[in-house]
Each structure stands twice: as C-alpha cells, then as structure tokens.
C-alpha cells in the first residue's frame, strides 16, 4: 500500500527536481539526443561527402559489419574465413583487445609496485607523489608527440640508450615496423596511465588500518604472507575500481593511436576505425553502425560494473 507523501516531502521532491532540471536538460541535449541520432543514422546510407538524399537501409550496415546472414557473394571476407563480416573491423577489435589486456595487466602490476614503494617508509615520498602526477597531467596528444620523437628511428633517444647498453645493435623503427607498432602504443599508454593506477591504489593502501599489520606481525607473518593475506584482500575494492575505470578507457582508446599511427592497419582501434569511416570517408551510416556497436559492447561492460560493485547513492 502506498503511503501518502506529506506536504513537506512533496515540497522537497519538487525542489529537488527543479535543482536537477538544468542538468537533465543539458544531458538530454548533449548525450541523449546525439546518441539517438547516431543510432538512427546507422540505419541509413548517409554520406556527408555525397550530395544526395539518404535512404533507409535497415540492418544492412550491421550485417556487413558483423557478417550475420550474408551469402558468400555479399561478404567481402576472404574465402573460408570463419568471420564473414568486415575484416578491417575484426582487426580493429583484435588490436583494441590486445591493447586493453596487455596495457592494463602491465599498468596494474607496475602501479601496484609503485604504490607499495611510495607507501613504504621512504624519505621524499612527497616528491614521488608529485612526480606521479606528471605523466597524468600531460595532455595525451602531447605525450604521444613526445614519445614519437623519443622513438624516432635515427635521432630518437630510446634507440640511442638501447644501443649504448648493447641491447640492440641497430636502431629499430618502433613506429613504422608492424612488429613493434602495437607494443609501442602499449608502452606509451603504460607510461601515461600507470601513475593514475598507482594513485588510486595508494589511496586504497592508505585506508588499511596499521593495526592489522601489527597483528599480523605478532602472529609471525612474514612480508610475503602479510601482502597476500592482509594487503591484497583489503586492497581489492580499490583495485577493482581502478581496473574497471582503466578498462573502459582502454576500450575506447583514440588519442595516442590517432596521433602516433594515424589509421594504420597494424594499430587501428575500434574508435579510430569508426571515426575514419565517418570523417575520412564521409560514411556516416556505416560509421554510426560501428559507433553503436562500440556503445553496446562497452555498455554491457559498464552495466556489469555498476551491478557488480553496487555503487551506492546514499
């Protein structure tokens, strides 16, 4: 049975909605409508470079993209390939997933090490904390350009250092070579975002009561046991949050790839691919179908996150 709301409660609710109204209107306009419009575009053959009225094409773009229900004549896939859809798209998914998994694994391990290091009794912790914010504060485009210069095959400092150390015997074309291009992107991303990971984990470490470590000491637990039985379990919430944020970021990676590699096949990611179709080729219909696919893929992940962590309102 519904309780009748008191006058005060109703007045409160009305005030709250009035306060919310501007934000709701803006979000509807800058997020809701463009999202709806993108989805609508994905069912048309809109091309902004061609001067003709757009037509409704139904699921055509999605079928081409994912290769669902295509006959062999309709599919552009190589003969005998298991994936009947767009192989450039498959490549973009593959690159994005490899990038995401490898960079996040490295960032988590390295971030955890750095967080533990800064958390330990170290003089100059303040300086370290400040230094950690440097890569994070540098705009991604700037860090991409900085690294492009450092990784230059002839005049770059990275090759110079590796040559001096005897690790390599001649300069490597890190960016141009298909063997190293994707790993180069991973390395730059690891440099840029590991400090962010370390900061989140450091905040988690600092919230662990010191008394627990003392208790573990009294019980005779060594440093390794303390780490696995006290630190890690208590760090889990912070670790999980950091992981999820980074995963969402990595799945939509754009800046680093676009600036360092352009739309090169070896490194093209989902976002770069979608923008290439839309802006470079003017194909807003197909590009929007890709955008919408990315939205759904990341949306599933986000929903799982909100449910799994039960982010609390109160």
């Amino acid at each position, binding site marked *: 049975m519904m309780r009748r709301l008191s006058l005060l409660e109703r007045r409160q609710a009305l005030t709250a909605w009035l306060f919310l109204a501007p934000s709701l209107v803006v979000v509807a306009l800058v997020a809701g409508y463009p999202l709806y419009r993108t989805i609508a575009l994905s069912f048309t053959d809109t091309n902004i470079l061609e001067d003709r009225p757009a037509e409704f094409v139904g699921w055509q773009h999605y079928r081409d993209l994912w290769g669902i229900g295509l006959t062999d004549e309709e599919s552009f896939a190589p003969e005998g390939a298991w994936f009947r859809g767009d192989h450039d798209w498959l490549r973009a998914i593959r690159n994005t997933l490899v990038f995401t998994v490898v960079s996040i694994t490295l960032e988590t391990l390295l971030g955890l090490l750095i967080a533990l290091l800064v958390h330990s009794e170290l003089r100059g912790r303040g300086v370290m904390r400040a230094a950690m914010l440097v890569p994070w504060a540098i705009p*991604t*485009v700037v860090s991409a350009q900085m690294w492009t210069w450092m990784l230059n095959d002839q005049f770059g400092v990275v090759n110079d250092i590796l040559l001096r150390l005897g690790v390599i015997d001649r300069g490597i074309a890190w960016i141009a070579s298909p063997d190293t291009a994707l790993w180069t992107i991973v390395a730059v991303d690891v*440099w840029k975002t590991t400090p962010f990971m370390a900061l989140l984990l450091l905040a988690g470490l600092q919230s662990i009561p010191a008394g627990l470590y003392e208790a573990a000491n009294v019980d005779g637990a060594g440093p390794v046991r303390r780490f696995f039985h006290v630190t890690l379990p208590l760090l889990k919430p912070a670790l999980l949050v950091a992981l999820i944020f980074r995963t969402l970021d990595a799945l939509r990676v754009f800046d680093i790839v676009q600036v360092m590699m352009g739309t090169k096949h070896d490194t093209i990611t989902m976002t770069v691919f979608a923008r290439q179709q839309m802006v470079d080729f003017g194909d807003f219909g197909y590009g929007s179908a890709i955008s919408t696919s990315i939205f759904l893929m990341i949306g599933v992940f986000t929903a799982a996150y909100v449910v799994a962590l039960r982010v609390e309102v109160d």
Partner: protein
Amino acid sequence: MAPPAVRLAARLLRRTLLYAAAAIVFAYMVFPFLWAVGSSLKSPAELFAIPVVYWPSEPRWENYRDVFSEQPFGRNLLNSAVVAVATTFLSLVIGATAAYALGRYRFYGKRPIFYGMLAVSMFPQISILGGMYVLIQAFGIYNTWIGLVFSYMVLTLPFTVWVLTSFARDIPRELEEAARVDGATPLQTLWHVIVPIMAPGLVTAGLLAFIQAWNEYLFALTFTVENSTRTVPVAIANFSGAGQHEIPWAQIMAASVIVTIPLIALVLVFQRRIVAGLTAGAVKG
C-alpha cells in the same frame, strides 16, 4: 636470531634497494618531459645529430618565439583557454545544483538519475560522434568555440555532478536545518550555506573539468577545421614545417612544454584536491 651486524647489513641493503627502485621509477616518470624540454632548446644541428646530443650546448630560445611566429599557436592557446574556462564554469554552475539535489534531498527517482549520470560519464565519446556532428551542423555552431563548449558538456557535466554529489553528501545536516529555521529558501541555502562548504569540492571538480576540456582531442579534431578555432591538442598534432615531410620537432617540443608547464603547476599546487577528486566515489563506492 641473526647477529646484529648481519641484521644491520640486511637493513642497509634493503634501504639501498628501496631508494634505487624509487630513483628508477622517478626517472621513468619524469624523463620524457625533461627530454622534451631539452629538445625544445636544441638547434636543428643538435636535434638531428648522430649520435644523439643529450643537452643543447647553448639553449636556442628562438624555438619558443618561432612557435608563435611560424605557427598560429597564440590563437590556439586562446581557443583552448576560452573553451576550457567556459566549459568548466558552465559545468560547475549547472552541476552544483544537481549535486545538491542528489546529495541532500530524498525523493523518488533519485537512484535512476544518479546511475544515469554515472553511465553517461562512462560511455564512449565515439558513440555520439555522428549524432553530435549532425546536431552541431544543425545549430550552425560547427567550427566555433560554442560548438566545442556544447560538445564538451557531455564529458564534464555528468562527471562534475558525480564528484560534487560525493562532496555534498558529507555536509552536516544541522547547517541546512539552521538555515531553514532562519527562513532561507532552498536556493538561498544552496548559495549561502552549501556552496561555501562545498568550495573544496568545487575546486576539485573544476580542476578536473578544466584539465579534461584542455586536453580533449577527438571532438576538437572533428568539430573544428580552421586554425581560428583549433585548440592546442589539435594544433600540436598537426604542426607542419616548411617542407611537406619536414616535421618541426623543436617547435612541437616547445609548444608541448608551453602547454604542459601550467598543467604541471596546477597539479602540483592542488595535488591533494586532485587525488581526492579522482578517488572520490571511486574508493567509497
């Protein structure tokens, strides 16, 4: 028990290793920026020297002048400043009232709205690129400051609301009640009581919004076409030299240093606030 001398040696070794590791990590994080500073002061001969020259023999400050004379960089800086300041201001004004409602009021439908904001702040920019382009064209704000500020609201507003809500929740209830007893309207309460207490939160959220708008690349690249509206990230990614294949590295590095120094200064001054903002909600959640 090991003899004291051995224990002392072990401790000494441990400390040495710890500091060595810290030094390596420090160098790893700071070196690329220092390398950019060094490169920005090199002459072309030193920039393209084999073997690599590590520090310029004589700093060539002309590179910094050339950024402004040979590139439209002054204009790019103005564009970025105007767009980032306007975006931050709008996000804070609109976001603070929403955060107040979400953090302090109890009403039906609050939960879905909070989750909605959270979801919007997480969803990928690319998923609205096509629709946003069409909308910006329809409003006639393509290739303008307003167009960029408009599109940036999707990045900064939900995030601002989210960060500020976590600050608003922590305000003691007695203060509002005192204001109500004194006969203040909700808007007066917000302005005279809540905003001053939320000031640290506003600084944090404002900084994060500013940095986000200042660094944004995808929308800026797509919704501007001329140097009169291009922001710094787009400009730095597209600097070109006299020849088609000549990349003006010294100028790119000089420009990189110019845009990064204020950011690093901001971040160092407001270190604690920024870390608090990044972990707000995240760690509590």
